[in-house]
């Protein structure tokens, strides 16, 4: 995934990746990543857990808007199980994306 992400970014498209293998992201160095220590095949969480999936996607967008250091990996705090997700969290997560402009280069 990281290799494709790098090529898109190189072609002029800003990208963010959801990583579940931190070592891989460290080596391949995609421009922006959020990392979750979650099982393969579950980057956005569990089937039908809509709030969980929305939170992860919101975190990815926050990273897209907020990361200023090329190659940064944001370690998300969510455990695989026993987390609660709600809409208020999503609103707060997305706050930095609601500014007028994206980050300056």
């Amino acid at each position, binding site marked *: 995934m990281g290799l494709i992400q790098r090529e898109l970014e190189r072609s002029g498209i800003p990208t963010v990746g959801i990583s579940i293998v931190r070592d891989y992201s460290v080596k391949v160095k995609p421009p922006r990543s959020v990392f979750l220590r979650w*099982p393969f095949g579950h*980057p956005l969480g569990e089937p039908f857990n809509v709030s969980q999936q929305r939170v992860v996607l919101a975190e990815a967008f926050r990273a897209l808007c907020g990361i200023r250091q090329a190659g940064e990996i944001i370690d998300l705090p969510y455990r695989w199980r026993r987390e609660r997700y709600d809409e208020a969290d999503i609103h707060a997560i997305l706050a930095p994306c*609601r500014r007028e402009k994206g980050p300056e280069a």
Partner: protein
Amino acid sequence: MTWHRFKNRLIARVITRFPSLASRFVESYAPWESEDVPWTPLTKPLSACTVAMVTTAGVHHRDQPPFNMTDREGDPSYRAIDFTRPMDSLMITHDYYDHKDADRDLNIVFPVERLREFEREGVIGRLAERHYSFMGHITGPHIVTLVNRTAPEVAGLLKQGGVDAAVLTPG
């Protein structure tokens, strides 16, 4: 099913259940250590961006050819995904991770419905018309094909589609 495919699916199931084993397994196919990090700044507010998704989860429409699971070095080709078609037109061909859960709810690897919600809610400006899917287990000479040919092709198609930003998801 061939022994080769059976073995890969078995490994996929084991490392999905026991993620601690995965790091050792993955180390062997982390393709290289990059030096530089490409960078394109996001210059528009997210609420004005056309957003596309690119996945390596092996997603494709049922009427598209599946990814090649018999080549041990993977398949560097891609499939264009049309979000205007119903969710059940999509399926996964990928033996290198356990996609039983993703088969039940594709959003955990390819969050089509979540992105549609974010579009309706104005979080993102617009969802792109075409999204792209790869099969993420690629090694050997196919890495060169991916980096030099198919990934840049997808970048070109995204740009033609007016895409301002892309979200990438693994399998």
